[in-house]
């Protein structure tokens, strides 16, 4: 109970206390405004702030699961999977590392909705799905240990390193989570400014396509994207914030 009173974000469940309070002091991911697109970040209370891009201004994003060192590795790796290049912005601008950090602290990262009773058969054939005991939190923590110093390598060396772990569960989670962070609703921390949706022409939650669904054959039809919050006019509580 002593633990509970000290925990800054204490919640009811014992399970949460274990993973939250076992964490060290709160850490931040410090990014330059330019490197995250310079437009949108989240403050401690998760209210969205729009910042004017200013050279040399740095922004501190509070981390919920990763240490600062881990977050830098994740940001670098996600950026190699979905790079910022001549085809457009990528994982770095869309805030993928922030998205993954939040997912890992939420129910998904803790396996709250996966069947986790043993016995475990770690080497089961692929068609049985993931049969291991480790939660996504544990898979990330272990995987990141093996990428120590990754963010300080050059791009070619980073790609070599990623190729070496391509067959791992950690890599497949990282790749899947990167795609999620690129294209999820911005309420989850990724897809900042709907960058991902703009890249692919997805308008987000759009109440009606009645007048358009059987038109525009063979032509591009790209309504301006709107997020769930913009569409509903209220904040919808995302799953990662639930018990």
């Amino acid at each position, binding site marked *: 109970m002593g633990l509970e009173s000290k925990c800054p974000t204490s919640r009811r469940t014992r399970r949460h206390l274990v993973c939250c309070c076992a964490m060290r002091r709160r850490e931040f991911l410090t990014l330059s405004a330019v490197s995250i697109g310079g437009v949108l970040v989240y403050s401690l209370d998760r209210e969205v702030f729009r910042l004017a891009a200013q050279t040399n201004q740095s922004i501190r994003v509070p981390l919920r699961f990763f240490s600062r060192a881990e977050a830098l590795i994740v940001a670098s790796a996600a950026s190699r999977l979905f790079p910022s290049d001549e085809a457009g912005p990528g994982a770095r601008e869309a805030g993928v590392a922030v998205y993954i950090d939040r997912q890992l602290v939420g129910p998904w990262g803790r396996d709250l909705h996966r069947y986790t009773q043993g016995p475990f058969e770690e080497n089961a054939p692929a068609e049985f799905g993931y049969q291991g005991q480790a939660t996504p939190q544990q898979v990330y923590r272990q995987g990141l240990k093996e990428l120590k110093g990754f963010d300080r390598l050059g791009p070619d060396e980073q790609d070599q390193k990623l190729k070496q772990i391509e067959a791992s569960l950690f890599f497949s989670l990282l790749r899947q989570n990167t795609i999620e962070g690129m294209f999820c609703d911005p*309420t989850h921390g990724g897809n900042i400014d709907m960058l991902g949706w703009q890249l692919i*022409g997805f308008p987000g939650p759009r109440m009606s396509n009645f007048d358009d669904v059987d038109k525009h054959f063979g032509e591009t039809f790209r309504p301006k994207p709107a997020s769930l919050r913009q569409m509903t006019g209220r904040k919808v509580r995302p799953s990662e914030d639930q018990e």
Partner: protein
Amino acid sequence: MKTLPSVDVVIVGGGWTGLLMAKELGSRTTLSVVVLERGGLRKTDDYGDDMDELDYAIRLRMMQDASRETVTLRHTSSHRALPIRQHASFFPGSGVGGAGEHWNGEFPRILPDCFALLSNTIEKYGAERLPEDHSIQDWGVTYDELEPHYMRAEVLLGISGKAGNIRGKQMEGGNIFEGWRSAEYPNPPIKIPYFSALFRDAAKALGYHPYPIPAATISQIYTNPDGIARPGCTYCGFCERFGCMIGAKAQPTNTLLPVIQKRKNVSIRTGATVRRIVHDTTQSGGSARGVSYIDGSGEEVFQPAEVVFLASWTLNNTRLLLLSQIGEPYEPTSGKGTLGRNLTHQVYFPAATAFFDKPLNRFMGSGASGVRIADFDGDLFDHSGLPFLRGGILLALSLGFRPIANFGVVPQSVKARWGSEWKKAALHYYDRTGNIVFHGEHLAYKGNFMDLDPVYKDHFGDPLLRFTLDWRENERKMGEFATAKAVEIAGQMGAKEVTPFPGLRSYDATRNQSTHIQGGTIMGSSPDRSVLNPYLQHWQVSNLFVLGASAFPQNASANPTPTILALTYRTADAIVNRYLKNPAPLA
């Protein structure tokens, strides 16, 4: 255990079948009816916030929580089963409305000859053409008997489509291969988006017979005979795995619940998890006394009832009978027992993934907007020279492309799976990709069945249901045939590259292949080979009825909900007209 006052009827499960039975009995009789639903209450207003792919379609917010209960899988009886730790190949629902809330709303009837599959196949091809270890059988009900009930279900939901066969007269533009219909659909077909229109035109050019999918995502404002009014679909694309926030997609909560809530003799208890059917049975038979369940506060409750309806979805219907020790569990070596036999899952896969040079605007659509062909369904084409029996439908669905699920699919010519090369190709092809999907019949086999797992338990400590399930040569060959046809159509559609389905290997619990799992408490005309009689009444326990696709002896290519509702209507009639006057076996 707390014992409650007895009621006339208790219904386990608040999905399509449970609520339809509650509505029928609640409206047509004065019986006291209690529906027990383990999930929570849901309603259309709740769905305004659900247009979020991550939480709903990826994290599966509307589905049964696998941490509490799942199933185990093994491919043959000689293997050890492992739990399906995350739902992926099928999606059981949880909460009022069940899987009927997050379904797509495709609404085809089953082909008439499927109801007498064993007799018809032997008559046409001879018994020697049947797979050695098959266990297919006739349903004990005919299409003609079901036709009026199909019609009632279509009118209830306001199905939008085009008839292809009204009383034997072929109708241009509909499915000319469908069973006879007594009338046109209650609403005209829904709109056809670009990708589906390309499929329609290509199929027609190749001499096939495309038709718009009969849809529960309705085309216009509609008021059903119960006075329930629903708006037309807006093609927002948040349909499959979501609840409809305007109620255009027929769901139990928008079609049945408002009627039930007006009936004083019907009540719905949520958070009530039924663990056992309580019964007095002997060798020769017996009767159910009610059900025991855990309520929302964790207390164990006994609800006595005169009649028990098990309407808790395919898998839980079978599991509750096994846990309650009602009926003889199936044993594949001896062939004895009926409970748990004939487990089937639809043969369902993306037969051809087609890549185009033009954008498709695929974010627009509904769960059921699209076009099908039935030219290779059932026995509608000659199988004399083919290495398999039966068939299925090919379709081009425009259900609203979800970016997380679909981003990154690239043609085989692109080798990279991450990095700049992949990103460039994935961005280019994102809105230029479409799947032609195959839904095929799955025959029943002696070796595919369900029983209780000896190792893994649910959160109460009860054994999980165990699947013993794998594909056979008939499905693999049928799949190869369908894939070749889909590739041909994709080429005709103008695809620049096509990735054919690689073929069925072992049953894969990680690949989504529809939620059309069937069997386990199958119906039939003999208690030696089925659990239920043709009125879905338990052969040995005559005050117990089991509703849903657990009654299907084998899997047709059609989506199961229309047939589930038609069978439920037929059972409701038999109960109101016959059983209440004389509570005895109906067959």
